[in-house]
């Protein structure tokens, strides 16, 4: 953790922002995984006693900088959107367990919904680098919400879905997960709203494809001391609440219990 400098704040859509800041670690030495998150202090005001978790989206090794992409939906993210280049920002992380890579994977399916897409970019880069074929299925409410399509295309095929059909296929991401489409997929990785994750888990369990889900729970500390961020998992037949900030946010799909 340390106070970092904002390098850039870019508007990437309606209420959508890309924030780039100096990294709190030496990126050339590694020490991060795709799927991890950064826990950002909004301001030094008591208006925000809790930090905001945002997924690591892009890593800039040359500049030793990190980019997160977010929707300014509530008070804290709206305040973050007021940051400008040169401002200070208190950054904790990268935290948590990211997406595990499996060297032998031939074909990886990446599934992202809305503001769940950002962590997939760095993942795609890593998968591509290890020689896995990357296929992305990304869904948005409507055309103007689309983010990161070009970035993902750099690593493989991208299937676009919108709720209202304004671009790409009309429908939900699961509509694209047909048996044909899943042909040859050795593993999937999904990040997005809970209803999407639940649907993806069900469909791909039927197709017998193992995968990972990145969960979104409200976080207090982000480091495992408040026990606020738990999600239910089933391990060895036993259900229990585990902390998504340290044991997650990414979990093997078969462990995750949605209630």
């Amino acid at each position, binding site marked *: *953790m340390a106070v970092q400098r904002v390098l850039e704040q870019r508007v990437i859509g309606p209420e959508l922002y890309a924030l780039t800041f100096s990294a709190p670690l030496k990126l050339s030495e590694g020490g991060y995984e795709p799927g991890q998150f950064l826990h950002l*202090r909004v301001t030094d005001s*008591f*208006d*925000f*006693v*809790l*930090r905001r978790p945002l997924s690591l989206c892009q890593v800039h090794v040359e500049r030793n900088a990190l980019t997160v992409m977010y929707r300014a939906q509530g008070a*804290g993210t709206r305040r973050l959107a007021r940051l400008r280049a040169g401002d200070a920002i208190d950054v*904790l992380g990268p935290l948590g367990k990211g997406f595990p890579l499996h060297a032998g994977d031939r074909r990886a399916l990446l599934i992202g919904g809305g503001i769940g897409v950002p962590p997939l970019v760095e993942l795609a880069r890593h998968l591509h680098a290890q020689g896995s074929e990357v296929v992305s299925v990304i869904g948005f409410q409507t055309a103007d919400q689309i983010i990161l399509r070009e970035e993902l295309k750099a690593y493989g095929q991208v299937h676009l879905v919108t709720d209202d059909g304004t671009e790409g296929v009309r429908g939900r991401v699961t509509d694209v997960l047909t048996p044909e489409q899943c042909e040859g997929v050795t593993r999937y990785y999904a990040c997005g709203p809970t209803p999407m994750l639940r649907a993806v888990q069900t469909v791909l369990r039927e197709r017998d494809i193992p995968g990972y889900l990145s969960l979104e*729970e*409200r*976080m*207090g*500390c982000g*480091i*495992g*001391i*408040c*026990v*606020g*961020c*738990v*999600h239910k998992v089933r391990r060895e037949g036993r259900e*229990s*609440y585990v902390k998504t900030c*340290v044991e997650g946010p990414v979990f093997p799909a078969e462990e995750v219990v949605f*209630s």
Partner: protein
Amino acid sequence: MNLAVKVGSLHLKNPVMPASGCFSFGKEVAAFYDLSVLGAIVVKATTLDERQGNKTPRLAETAAGMLNAIGLQNPGVERVIETELPPLRKYGIPIIVNVAGNAMEDYVQVVERLNDSPDVSAIELNISCPNVKCGGIQFGTDPEMAASMVRAVKRASRTPVIVKLSPNVTSISEMALAVEEAGADAISLINTLIGMKIDIARRAPLLANGQGGLSGPAIKPIAVRMVYEVTSHVKIPVIGIGGITTGEDVVEFLLAGAQAIQVGTANFTDPLACKRIIEELHAYCDEAGVKDINTLIGAAKPHAKGRFL
């Protein structure tokens, strides 16, 4: 300069310790700094059996504060003794175990089990958790029930018993006097105030549990008042808790009469909070020419000995 204080028979190298439930069992924060800088460590509420706690969302942010409804999730006293406490030994600081339960027998059994652990310096009796149906809050709001609980636990405990009081009462002094009379070695206060947030989009309470406990800077004035009031009525030492975020906040609680303090929510905002607060306290004493921090304790009271130091 002396920052050391005593809470009954406990010797603390400084008055700052993390509050229960806001530091888990210490190991996560140990990745950020050496825990031996702390005055003591207070671990998460421990119950007889493992507890899963409440459904999520368990947290909500409020103005200068937060609501939590964790519901006492913890691995149970056995695992606490076996796996959580031993790694804390190496820091050489007092370890205080926060104890919770439903019935009086639960509490007594946990305390008896803790007697066998060489790691426990004191227990903090949590009769004030607002977030579980039978989490002991009834013991925290009725002076007679509180007193009988304290008597039973005192009989059972090898180590000093600190009683943690709930602020959700008409008279905090009445509660304090009752537990003092019943043999408590010290009092800690305050636990959280019961609050609620409504999610206007969903038109329902935001927390899965409905209500939760309010903590953070928002509650500090209430906590300071209760510390001031209670220390004017009881003779046993009082540990102040509520919204402490800076070294100056610690000074405020000491002046109000607290013998030591605990830091809760601030650990979430800043994992280094306790360490930073100790440094700030040190710097304050330096600047203000305070040679012995004990001269601050209660110094804001009329006719306090320390008042014109």
